[in-house]
Structure formats: C-alpha cells, structure tokens
C-alpha cells in the first residue's frame, strides 16, 4: 500500500511480516475510523434531531461541543472534580446552554418570514460562543488530559492496539443510539417529538406543547454535544475555542450524508464519514483527507439528494 508520493506509511505493530502488519494496520485504522465516526454520529444526532423537529440548522451546535470540553477541563483541573463528575457538570451545563440558546436566539425567529433569519442567527451564536471562549480561556491551545479511565487493549499478541478512548467512544455511541431510539419509540415525549417533526399544527391539536418539545430536543442535542466534546478531546487531546467548528461541520455533513432528520441516518453517516476520513488520511494523503470527505459528500448528494436514509414522503390526497 503506497500513496501517490511513494511514501509507505508505518504499520502499527510487527513490521517483519509485512502482509500481516498491513492487515493489522488496516483493522487498526478501521477501528479508529469507527471511533471518530462515533463522535461524528453523536454530534450529528444533535443536528438531525433539531432539523427534524424545528426544521432549522443549528450551526452553533459544534461550538457547544467546545464549550462542553472547556467545562470538563475547568472542572477537572480547576475545581478538581473526578472525571465522571466533570462530565456530568458539562452535560448539565450544555443542556442548559442549549435551552437558553433556543429560547433566546431561535424561538423568536422560528415563525419569521424567512427561514434564513434563524440560520444567520445560528451562525452568529456560533461566533458568539467561540468569542466567549476566547475571552475566558484565551486563544492558546490547551492540552486536554484524557478523562477516559479505560486502559488500551492489546490484541493479536500486541500487533493491534485499541485505545481506551476508542473503546469508550464506540460504546458510548452504541448506548446513546439504543437509548435514544427507545426513548423516541416508547416514551410519550419521544412520540410527541415524532408528531411535532411531522406536523406541528396537527401535534398542537393533539395537545402537544410544540415549543416545549423543541426545547427538549435542543436539551438532548446539547447534552449529547457535551459527551461528544469530552470524547473528541480525550482522543485528540487539544482544545482551542475553534475545536468544535470543524467537527461540527463534519457532523453536519454526516447528518446530511445519512439523510437529515433520520436518527439511524446520523449513525450511518457519522461512521461512514469517520472511516472515510481515517482511511483517506492513512492511504491517500492526510492533507487531502477533508477534501476527500467533502468530495464523497458531493458524490452521494448527486446520486441520492435526500441522503442515504432520507426519503421523500409522498402525500396522499
């Protein structure tokens, strides 16, 4: 396996058996891809749920991730909280932040004549969050100490190492997906979300408080963003006020990829994106990886404009 410039990349593990090492590194990249993709999927859930229910793109979502990571960092190194408590603080903080953003910045505009108004506001909120972080924490890159307590797992006699972060990230993604699916299918609030996403007017006629349901959606999305922020910064241990921007955009791509508004779509889109990105970095060019990711997006949207699981519902008259 060579990239166009002729460089061979270093396979992890045993270099003596080249074929064996290559397949081991392939597996290792694949796991890393799924792990990164799991983070994208968790972030994409926030995009896709908010889009599904409020029909808006919350471009500040990525920056909530960054805020969540700073809160964890401040709670661990500043207040000396244990990692799990810090995560809880961050989840609560981001949940409240999400609700506040929705009620202050978006709700007054949801019925505005142009849906662009709320989109532009979201971009504004994104810059606001970045600049607040800049003001409080400064522009310097802070190294983020991983708070994942799980040790790395050595497989195949040490030829394959799976980091604790990857294990925890993938496990979190699975738990969140199952939990969220059960919540939406089985709980009354979840069913209300489905009803609101389909038809706000009809949902109101059922007695569903649409504003409350939208606020709940933002709360869930932002809580997940906090979790994603911690996982992301544990795997890639640096933190700046712009840390959330790129993963936010990529998770948005993942959501569109899978079919925006669809929860399984966010999972599929996120995982695919992560795997494509890591393989692109490993086998083609690390500089080109993002271009490859967005290139694949363009191709998929040309072939299937609604995304992989997106559908165009036919209305019956």
């Amino acid at each position, binding site marked *: 396996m060579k990239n166009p410039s002729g460089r061979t990349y270093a396979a992890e593990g045993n270099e003596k058996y080249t074929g064996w090492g290559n397949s081991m590194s392939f597996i290792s990249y694949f796991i890393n891809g799924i792990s990164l993709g799991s983070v994208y999927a968790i972030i994409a859930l926030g995009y896709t749920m908010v889009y599904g229910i409020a029909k808006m793109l919350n471009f500040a979502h990525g920056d909530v991730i960054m805020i969540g990571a700073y809160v964890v960092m401040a709670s661990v190194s500043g207040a000396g909280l244990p990692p799990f408590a810090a995560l809880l603080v961050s989840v609560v903080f981001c949940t409240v932040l999400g609700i506040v953003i929705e009620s202050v910045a978006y709700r007054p505009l949801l019925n505005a004549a142009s849906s662009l108004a709320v989109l532009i506001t979201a971009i504004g909120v994104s810059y606001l969050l970045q600049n607040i972080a800049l003001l409080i924490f400064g522009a310097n890159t802070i190294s983020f100490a991983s708070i994942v307590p799980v040790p790395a797992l050595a497989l195949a006699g040490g030829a394959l190492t799976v980091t604790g972060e990857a294990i925890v990230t993938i496990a979190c993604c699975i738990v969140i997906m199952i939990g969220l699916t059960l919540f939406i299918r089985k709980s009354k609030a979840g*069913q*209300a979300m489905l009803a609101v996403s389909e038809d706000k007017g*009809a949902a109101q*006629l*059922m*007695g569903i408080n*649409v504003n409350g349901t939208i606020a709940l959606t933002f709360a869930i999305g932002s809580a997940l963003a906090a979790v994603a922020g911690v996982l992301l910064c544990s795997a890639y241990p640096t933190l700046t006020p712009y840390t959330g921007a790129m993963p936010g955009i990529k998770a948005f791509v993942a959501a569109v990829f899978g079919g925006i508004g669809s929860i399984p779509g966010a999972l599929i889109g996120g995982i695919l994106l992560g795997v494509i990105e890591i393989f692109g970095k490993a086998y083609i060019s690390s500089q080109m990886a993002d271009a490859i990711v967005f290139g694949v997006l363009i191709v998929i949207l040309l072939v299937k404009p609604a995304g992989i699981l997106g559908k165009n*519902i036919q209305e*019956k*008259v």
Partner: protein
Amino acid sequence: MAMLEVKDMEVYYGMIQAIKGISFEVNEGEVIALIGANGAGKTTILHTVTGLLSPKRGTVLFEGKDITKIPAHKIVSLGMAHVPEGRRVFAELSVYENLKMGAYTRKDKAEIDATLAMVYERFPRLEERKNQLAGTLSGGEQQMLAMGRALMSHPKIILMDEPSMGLSPILVNQIFDIIEEVSKSGTTVLLVEQNAKKALSIADRAYVLETGTIVLDGDAKALMDDDSIKKAYLGE
C-alpha cells in the same frame, strides 16, 4: 348558553382580511354546518377557534369561558377536538400510535383503553390495520383515522374540516353516517363542508359563508329549500 360561541371574529393573514367579523353559535348536541365555496374562510374559522390562528378582533367562548387567547395545545383538554382539513395523520406513526397521540393529554390508562375499544368498534378497519403506518392507508382510511384520533381525546365537541374531501361517493356516505353516529352518541359537531348537500342533510342548523362573511343562516332543512342556496351550492 351556547356551548361554543364566536363573536365578531376578524382574522387577517398579514394585510389581507380573511374573516370579516362573523358571529355564530353551536349549542350542545347540535350538528352545525358551515358551508361555502373554496376560499370563503371556513378553515380559517376552525383554526381560529382551536387557537392555531389568533383573531385580530372578536372572542371565542367555549362553555362560557373565553378561550380566544388560549394556545392551541391547551384547547384539546378542555374538550374540543379538531379533525383538520386533509386529515393530517402522522404518516410515520402506526395507526395505533396515531390513536394514542389523540389521547395525549389524558392520564387514566383504563379510560384511554376504553375509548380505544370504542373507536375500534366504530372503525373496525382501524383495528385491522392498527400496526400499519398511517401513511400507507387509503384516503378514506386516513379520514377514519383522523376522526378516530380526535375521538380519542373524548371531546364534548368535535370540529371537522372537509371530511369528505377527495373521497369517492360511497366513502362520503360512510363518513357522513359516522358523523351522524358520533352526534347521536352525544358529541356536538361543528362541520365545515364544501359538499353542501351532504352537510345540510345531516345538520340541524347551518351558516353560509361567502368571502369571510356569513350571508345566510338558519335551519338546515329550510336552507336546503332556499332558492339561492339551491342555485349556488346544490347545483339545482
């Protein structure tokens, strides 16, 4: 005292006045028809009564209580259900889940189950298809589901918007038979229809609407014999 009383209602869409000061009342146990051509404002009136739109002027009284400012999602628990134009069932939910949505504001599980049994009895087709997604039902079945969903809230009054729209004549007759049954079982009905003939045939009283104004009202049977109504709405 009328069960539902609308006084001097005026509704605007931006600068355009859709409803130009109308008043009407619905007494307990009645079937009231609001008839009129497309664009007369029938749907706007229903939307304003259930709070999906707010009037610029005028009041809506339900059982003597002013509900003009009450948001739409709090209306249903007062005992008023609305079957919207075009059914608007939740296509991605199953028939059963749609019916459960209708009982969203109710708490007592045993009572909800009793109402569900009653709805299934009235619409056996819905029970046969309870696990099917609502979006896959035929137009007539979706209308039945929309009506069943409204009945799930156990309403005192049910507002129906164009229940016959887009249905075959046989289905139209079936739907109107069901409306009569619903009325006989003690639910007050406010019916909005373009199909004036069918609406007048089951209504006690009716109001005739033209471009946002009530031009005629009275006993349904008498309106059926009215020459101007015959000419304009009954095609005779």
